[in-house]
Structure formats: C-alpha cells, structure tokens
C-alpha cells in the first residue's frame, strides 16, 4: 500500500477558496500549527472555519493567524473572545460568526462523522440557541435538535503517524480525533512518521482509514521551543 505521507503543499492544495475547513485542537493546544502557517502563506481565502474554540488567548498564534490574515469569512464555534481580530471583524461585519455551545459543537461534528442526522441536547434550552431550531420534549424534558456538520477538509494534529495514516495522539487531543471522521479530505500533521506495526494498536487514536494525507509538522524539538516561548509570555 502506498505511503500516505506526502508533502505539505500537496496536502494543502486540496483546500480551495470558499471551502469549509475544520481545524483540530483547542485555543492553540495540539493545533496543526505548521499547516496553518503554510496555509497563511498560500493565501487561500473566503474560508468557513470550524473549530471548537478560536485562537490562543490574544491571537498571533495557530488558527488565529488565518483570521488576522483575513482568510476566513465565517467562523463556526463556541467562542471568539480569545482572538481580538475575530471580535473586531465580527463587529465591523467582515466576519460572520455562528455560535454553538462547545459540547454541542463537538457533538455536531461527531454526528457528521458518524452518519447521524443530529442529536438532542438539553444545552441551550431557554436561551438564544433556540432560534430557528426544533425543540423536542422527551419524558417532560426539553431538548434542542442540533444537526450534523461536516467539512470539505479537516486538518488535525497528532504526535506520531505510521505510513498507513494511523495516528497516535499525545497529551490533550481535544477535537482532533472527532474531526478526523467529519471531512471529505483529512490531513494529519504529526511530528514523527513510523512504519506500520510500530504504533501499539490499542494506542491508535485515529485509524488510517480516516486519514488521507500525513504531513510532517515542525517536529517535537521545535514544537517544544514554540510552546515554551508562547507560554513564557504571561496571559493578559
């Protein structure tokens, strides 16, 4: 079987203007930062970006860069407050924002990947979230019907991959394993690529059948440096 490891630009060439893109991670943590940096240079635009949260607090890092670089026309997620550029663009009408509670957002993505039409959640009942949604009562409790969501492309971040595309995560994988099911083309950015059989079957977080392209990120050493520098600056 042909190795799924390909060059970064070849993988990113699947992302076209106007597409819907999912990016895994959580306000900076375990985000595919190398792919994002390159995507900024490539300049693809008018993206609809789906992420559970937004930029690392204060921006200037990870997926926040795509917004700061005006490549995103719509953001779908639970929060924009960590990204000053997103708040500003939303305010002035440049950026459309669709909010979902974080638990709802990830269930919508999971439903999209799992072939479900949607889920019924108690979250959001009695709030703005009810707008335009079906409300269903079961055993006297109200639920909102939240529908499935998918993307054209998802970029996820793993720690190691094998050439078959199996992904092993490290630390807090957050949204990455869920997004891996919910896009037509899945790019996995990792720090190591190994041979099939080198990853423990019990430890594989995303099987290779879900992954279309494996790309090398900055590597563990540079990743460590990048985050150490980031974390050395105190949060506001």
């Amino acid at each position: 079987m042909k190795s799924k490891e390909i060059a970064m630009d070849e993988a990113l060439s699947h992302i076209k203007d106007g597409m819907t893109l999912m990016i895994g991670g959580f306000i900076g943590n375990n985000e595919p930062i190398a792919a994002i940096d390159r995507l900024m240079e490539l300049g693809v635009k008018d993206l609809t970006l789906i992420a559970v949260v937004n930029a690392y607090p204060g921006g200037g890092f990870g997926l926040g860069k795509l917004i700061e670089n005006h490549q995103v026309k719509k953001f779908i997620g639970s929060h924009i407050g960590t990204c000053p550029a997103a708040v500003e663009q939303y305010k002035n009408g440049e950026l459309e924002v669709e909010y979902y509670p974080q638990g709802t957002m990830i269930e919508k993505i999971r439903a999209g990947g799992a072939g479900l039409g949607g889920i019924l959640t108690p979250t959001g009942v009695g709030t703005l979230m009810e707008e335009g949604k079906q409300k269903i009562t079961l055993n006297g409790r109200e639920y909102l019907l939240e529908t499935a969501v998918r993307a054209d492309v998802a970029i996820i971040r793993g720690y190691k991959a094998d050439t078959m595309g199996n992904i092993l995560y490290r630390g807090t994988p957050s949204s990455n394993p869920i997004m891996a099911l919910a896009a037509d083309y899945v790019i996995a950015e990792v720090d190591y690529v190994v041979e099939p059989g080198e990853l423990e079957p019990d430890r594989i977080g995303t099987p290779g059948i879900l992954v279309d392209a494996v790309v090398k990120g900055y590597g563990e050493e540079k990743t460590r440096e990048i985050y150490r520098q980031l974390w050395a600056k105190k949060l506001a």
Partner: protein
Amino acid sequence: MDARELIARRAAQEFKDGFVVNLGFGIPVQAAAYIPEGVEVILQAENGILRFETVTKLGEEDPYTSDAACQPTRVLPGGSTFDIATSFAFIRGGHVDATILGALEVDQEGNIANWALPIAPGKYSPGMGGAMDLLVGARKVICTLQHTDKKGRSKILKKCTLPLSAAKAVDLIITELAVMEVTPSGLYLREVAPGVTVDQVKAVTEADLVVEGPIPEMKL
C-alpha cells in the same frame, strides 16, 4: 482581603472530598488555591483532562498537554486525558459534581447570563465556550460574582436582562457580600460576609431576597 479573594475563599468551602469539579476562569480558578485541608477534589477541564496540576512551571511542561486556557499542565497520578466529545459527555451526562462559574447577571429563579455582551446589533461576544453545557450538566452550579457592577447596580436581579446562558440552572450564588441559595420558593439569603448586615445586602440586591431567622456570617 479583596472582594475576589473573599469570594474565592468562600466558594472553596463548597468543595466536598472526592468531588469532580470544573472551574471557570477568574475567581473560580482562584478558589482552587483555598481548598480546605483534608478535601481532595478532582479537577476536570473541558478540553479533555482529569486530575491535573494547577500550575506547571516552564521547564517541566509538556508542549502537547494543556488546560482549558491553553496553559501548560501535567496529569497527576490517577489522572487521564481524552477527546473533547468524551469530555462533554462527562459534563452533560452528570459526571461532574460541581462547577463554579462567573456571571454578568444572575436572577432569583437561577437564570444566568454569563457571556453574551452586545457588541453590535444582534451580535454578541465573546461566545459561550463550555459554560452552557456546564450549567446544564453539572450536578451543582455555583455562581461567583461581585454583587454590583462598577456603577453600583445590583447583578443579583429579579430577572436577567442579558441573553441567558441557561434557564433555572444556578444553585448557589456567592458574592463578596453574601451567600444566596436558589430554591423553588425563592432566593434565600444564607450567609453574610464578615461585618456586613442583612440590610446592607438587601440595599444592593434587586432580587427579592428571602430572609428567614438569623443569618450567620461566612466562615472564611
């Protein structure tokens, strides 16, 4: 002691041994510093981690592991990490014993508004994050906030004016002046801060406050 520290100290007394708790940013996180002796709580963060260090020094961090503020952390013995769908399954599914969250407004029915600040017509910031799920799913919801805004207006209202984060979700409200409990028969004043009188609390509370019997002073 400033208002925030007082609130955090009092909130920390709500922790019971073995409780799984999720703490919002600000005062709630601060409460973790005042967990009573002999009480062990299990911290849960919505990005997908259980039992983790509240402060991890640079040099000891793992670049792939963070808390819900994307700050470095490490798993403690007996802790674990998992994906965020599982994390919210824990939250919504009633597997988190208590959450402590801040608020912009809270009212006597337990309604809470804690994110939707209007920034343009029909537009709100910053987004609810995981708060709405926590409000619905955590077994006990403790709301910590300052009693009044900068202009001295009560944040403890008859009816919230901002868009709600959740309806009838709050169990306990802790401010720098008082502890109040939301019950089916009204908002009960349970404790006052040291040196604060019941009348002083009433004077800055828009909500109808039920006062029954002598009201004890908070023990901090």
